[in-house]
């Protein structure tokens, strides 16, 4: 017997919300666009912030880098909450499987001494760097102008805690299931000479007033650290009998590739802005000149300690 499902055909009166129609015409719009465009309030704020003089609750003057249309930038990954958590659930699930595999076979504890040392004294301490980067990203979640940009910052902030927790779990595994390595790694972070330029740098970035400048300054560090620790060191690990290192570092490399997508698109949107592009390019150059050399310097101090292996 066949069932025939009969639904009434009803013509929609409109295909999406009016603000989306105003921008793109009356056609079906993606969930990303409906959940992103024009969501942030823009006018008629009732009271002035007690914590910031001469600013409205949402104000594009929280950064020198501005877009004439804040939605000229959209996330190339099209992340709104659901695809974001779905993607990251998979990433952390994979990481969890990796770490269980490494733990079950004690593979991290069995790493060659030199690799153990690199992990404990250089890689695991970076969970604190991730935590600092989280603080910088979350400032963008609050102060960036427009939902498209701020939601990327929000997700990046959450990612950073995720990265810090991945590194922490590696530390726990290296410590044979105890907190011993995390404790010594924290000492390295606080006092190890190879990490002090980095710690000084991230602390100085954490107190910047301009959220976008902070974000870019951290990115200059990422651009040095991630390729160094999770790509080139990864290759050395595969060649040097430290496959366990490679197994976990692939997940951080995967994250960094994802992070690049939106940050590169945002930087491009700032530089290409029809009205503010020229001013933005000047600010971008200034920000680069201020922070990129510091990032190189901090990475060099750290690289010296891993140089023996790679």
């Amino acid at each position, binding site marked *: 017997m066949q069932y025939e499902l009969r*639904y*009434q055909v*009803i013509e*929609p*009166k*409109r295909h*999406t*919300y*009016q*603000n989306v129609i105003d921008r793109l015409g009356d056609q079906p719009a993606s969930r990303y666009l*409906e*959940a992103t465009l*024009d*969501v942030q*309030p823009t*006018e*008629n704020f*009732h*009271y*002035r912030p*007690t*914590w910031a003089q001469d600013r409205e*609750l949402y104000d594009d003057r929280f950064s020198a880098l501005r877009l004439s249309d804040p939605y000229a930038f959209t996330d190339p990954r099209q992340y709104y*909450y*659901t695809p974001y*958590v*779905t993607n*990251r*659930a998979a990433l*952390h*699930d994979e990481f969890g499987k990796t770490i269980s595999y490494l*733990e079950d076979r004690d593979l991290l504890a069995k790493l060659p001494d030199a690799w153990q040392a690199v992990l404990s004294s250089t890689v695991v301490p970076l969970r*604190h760097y991730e*935590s600092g980067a989280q*603080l910088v990203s*979350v*400032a963008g*979640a*609050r102060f960036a102008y427009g939902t498209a940009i*701020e*939601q990327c910052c*929000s997700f990046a*902030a*959450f990612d950073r*805690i*995720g990265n*810090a*927790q991945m590194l922490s*779990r590696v530390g*726990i595994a290296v410590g044979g*299931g*105890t*907190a011993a390595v*995390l404790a010594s790694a924290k000492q390295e*972070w*606080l006092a190890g000479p190879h990490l002090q330029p980095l*710690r000084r740098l991230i*602390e*100085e970035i*954490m107190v910047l007033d301009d959220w976008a400048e902070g974000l870019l300054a951290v990115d200059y560090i990422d651009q040095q650290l991630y390729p160094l620790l999770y790509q080139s060191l990864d290759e050395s690990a595969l060649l040097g009998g430290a496959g366990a290192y490679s197994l976990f570092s692939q997940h951080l490399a995967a994250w960094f590739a994802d992070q690049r997508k939106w940050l590169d698109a945002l930087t491009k949107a700032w530089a290409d802005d029809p009205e503010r592009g020229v001013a933005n390019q000047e600010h971008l150059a200034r920000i680069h000149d201020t922070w990129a050399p510091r990032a190189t310097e901090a990475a060099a101090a750290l690289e010296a300690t891993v140089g023996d292996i790679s």
Partner: protein
Amino acid sequence: MTTVQPRAKKLPLKERYSLLTRDLDWEPSYVSRERLYPYTSYEGIKIHDWDGWTDPFRLTVDAYYKYQAEKDKRLYAVLDSFAQSQGHLSLSDASYLNAIKIFIQGVTPLEYAAHRHFAFLARYLEGPAPRFAALCQSVDELRHAQTQIHTISNYNKYYGGFHSWSKMHDRVWYLSVPKSLFDDAMTAGPFEFLISISFSFEYLLTNLLFVPFMSGASFNGDLPTMTFGFSAQSDESRHMTLGLEAIKFLLEQDEDNVPIIQDWIDKWFWRAYRMSALVAGMMDYMLPKPVMSWREAFELYFEDQMLGGLFPDLDFYGIKPPRHVDLAIGEKDHLGHQVYKILHNFSFAAAFTTSTPTDEHMAWLSEQYPSTFDRHYRPTWEKHRRIEAAGGRAFFQGLPQLCQVCQVPMAFTEPSDPTRISFRHSEYRGETFHTCSDGCKWIFDREPEKYVQAWLPVHQIYQGNCGGPTVPDVLNWYGIKEGDNGEYRGSADNTSWLEWHK
């Protein structure tokens, strides 16, 4: 859940959680703590040990992603199937959607505002544990805003009033009530924000506002709203815990915090309660199949659970029930009626429609409100019925007087006399400011510098800032389209509904 993570071998949950969250923090030495956290001292709150904060949920990031992805998988499956099967046709009636219109215009933007400002706490609170809890809440609130936008997106295709929710929230008169409340909280310092939103709103009132509302959605055939609502509420439980943890933490840190916190509870209870009046009107009048009266919900969720349960607990710290709570209790038999009267008077200028209650609905109201409905409210509705029987429909041909603090039209009555409107006013810097109640007047007098700034929609119209001098000018500026507003019977939605159900 199909996959179960293997339990940690050696570290118990508590310790592991602490290592994965608060242990990430370090004491900065290259910059000062004051520069890093510049906003934690000006409100007068004293914190001696940020590690005194505990988080019972102990949610790590991987678990967060796993649970949230699972919740959203379930939710979006419901949304997709409802849309595919034209589920909107099995609602109790299209008029039900008026409640959902107010929801997306009024509440969804608040979720978004909470998202943004919990990010402020996630940046500026000094303790890593509350910062992480705030970060989770910040992304949760984004989830709530976005799942609501997606749930309602399907209704927007077929019904009026949903299409311009974001612009409306910034501009339309009744939406300045919720907007001003969040603006008030966000412009305050981080601790006041925490007490206002996490405690007074999330813990004290959210149950009262959301749970009966979602039950109402379920009862009226609105499966998607019920699903997103209950799904959001599961996050809300974490947020309530943050609120309760916040208040206990602040009270335990220093005795000097107690009067400051009490003052904030007093302010924010009343502020949030006044905003919730919109929900009272909705529950009592806007559901074609009503599920619970405001009075019953208030008794169950506020009087029993909060006054009966929570406040005796807080008494331990020297915290008393909120100032003016007696007024809220005293008007529980009146609130919904007075608020719906406002909406009914002014729906010509709103992005929803209203109707005089039917006989059947009035019978339900009589039953729910035996001491007040027949005596004080039925006669006015009967008068509307007579006008409508003669082919008319009465609206308030003008603009209302608004309360300077809550921004609701000044429709509430004296505690001692439900036939007399309650008028209060204060003088500040030679100017008069009107408030609707002792609660709002007390709030105004406490911080007049703040409330004189209020963007009062009626006054802004009269200043010429809202698109022009005539009603059509203003409606156009609001983004309200022909057919979104006015009387439900004969409205665009009503006409379509009848057409689709021929």
